[in-house]
């Protein structure tokens, strides 16, 4: 899931600028389950902004709406009226939601209320950790299900480095050394030969390094849709 955190109130106020009518838009998917921008958080943020700006003598009229998924434009139809009545739209969706809103309502001023951080999973209530870097060519099959791109601080493919300290990463004792985990797992699985092979340099083209990515699934394209360059 996508994991995000709210920006500080000061930063949000700076982004809102002089806008008097603010619409906070929450999202019912990823940011709901990481408690950053769901309906509840959008409501609390709206209330916070109302009260704080009133106290400071420059009251803003802040309302809030939440859509099921902010990243898909069909779900954004429902808030059209509210968007047109706002001076600023404060999205507490992930970075994708913010952009989808900005693209759909191109005349609106859309600003982000969150910092989208990573793709990860909850470890326990209130704790999320990064698990995937979307490198585009998954190596989990040969690393015992532990990702060295996301979880090794140096993204080693032939790890560990010499800094492993009692199974922890040199940069943070709270971080497990990904290669210690991989080693332990492959040992249990009796697949140590995978560790002895020298993994060659990664082809980073499938990752963000190759440029912004797009996937086109011909099997899902609807008749009558314009053919993209990839399909021609």
């Amino acid at each position, binding site marked *: 899931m996508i994991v995000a955190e709210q920006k500080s109130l000061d930063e949000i106020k700076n982004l809102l600028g002089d806008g008097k009518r603010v619409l906070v838009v929450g999202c019912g998917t990823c940011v709901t389950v990481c408690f950053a921008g769901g309906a509840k958080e959008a409501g609390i943020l709206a209330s916070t902004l109302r009260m704080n700006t009133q106290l400071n003598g420059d009251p803003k009229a802040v309302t809030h709406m939440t859509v099921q998924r902010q990243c898909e434009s069909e779900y954004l139809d429902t808030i059209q009226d509210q968007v047109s009545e706002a001076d600023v739209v404060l999205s507490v969706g992930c970075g994708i939601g913010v952009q989808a809103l900005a693209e759909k309502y191109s005349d609106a001023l859309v600003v982000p209320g969150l910092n989208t951080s990573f793709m990860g999973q909850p470890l326990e209530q209130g704790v999320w950790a990064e698990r995937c870097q979307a490198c585009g060519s998954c190596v989990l099959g040969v690393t015992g299900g532990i990702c060295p791109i996301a979880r090794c*601080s*140096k993204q080693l493919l*032939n790890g560990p480095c*010499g*800094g*492993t300290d009692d*199974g922890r990463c040199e940069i943070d004792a709270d971080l497990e050394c990904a290669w210690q985990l991989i080693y*332990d797992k492959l040992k249990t699985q009796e697949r140590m030969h995978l560790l002895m092979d020298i993994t060659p340099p990664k082809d980073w083209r499938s990752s963000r390094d190759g440029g912004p990515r797009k996937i086109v699934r011909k099997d899902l394209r609807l008749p009558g849709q314009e053919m993209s360059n990839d399909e021609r």
Partner: protein
Amino acid sequence: MTSDNGYKSGSNLERMLRAGHFAVTTELGPPKSADPDVIREKAAILKGFADATNITDNQAAVVRMSSIGASAITLQAGVEPVMQMTCRDRNRLAMQSDLLGAHALGLRNVLCLSGDHQVFGNHPQAKNVHDLDSLQLVQMVTDFREKGCFQCGEEIEGDSPRFFVGAAANPFATPLEWRPLRLGKKAKAGADFIQTQLVFNLPRFREFMKEVVDLGVHEQVYILAGVGPLKSPGMARYMRDKLPGLDVPDEFVERMTAAGSGIEDKPARSAAWRKAGIAICVELIQQVREVPGVAGVHITAIEWEKAVPIITEQAGLLPRPNA
């Protein structure tokens, strides 16, 4: 591809090790400025006391003069450098480009490292590169020599760099049982020599080397044991408690503390500590020399280059032979 006389690179370090001498390498940290004289002064201190000198590459992720630049100055000063290259700051294009330049400047030894993470240094906000890891870098550098091609497979037209390639090993980092095998992997990737992390825990080091010898890896690479003089009990404690991957048994902290006890005068106490630190280093050199599979020592006297002549003298490593 080797040169006519059978050497891979022809470097002094290579000749020493090939000739069966117990090799000595040391380290020189470039300045945090553009001043070449700092390097010339340090090189002058070390000249004649080692077979080659490592020139660090933004060590501890602190920006210093580049290893390639400082190595070239060191070479001009009459000391053979081992240029260090980390994977932290450069992608494969910059690495290969620098290696071509390094060879053109007369450099012949390269040590391939992952690199300390930038959070430790003075630019923690920087983007982390790690396009390659140290094993892939070793392979890339040896491929220049063995296959005459770039990492992408394209043939190098004209002079192909022929380096004596080194890598690091840490016998004290977990998982412990994996480390000898990882050393073997570096040998498989083409490494010619290995420098280990600082050895203080001799029993652990002996266990490590026994496994290495059992695997036959000591015949595939020349292994130099890392040693270094302690300056103070504080340094010993810091290395024991704070630096990752270092194993400093309590006895050394105690010895260093005892060396200065009862001495009130600060300069005198400091001198006593340093004397003890050198004595410990000399002992360790003599002990690792006896461990089967060890082909030399790598002496790291951090910001204390003047200790190297003393240590090498007391450890019976002088004069350095001409290979």
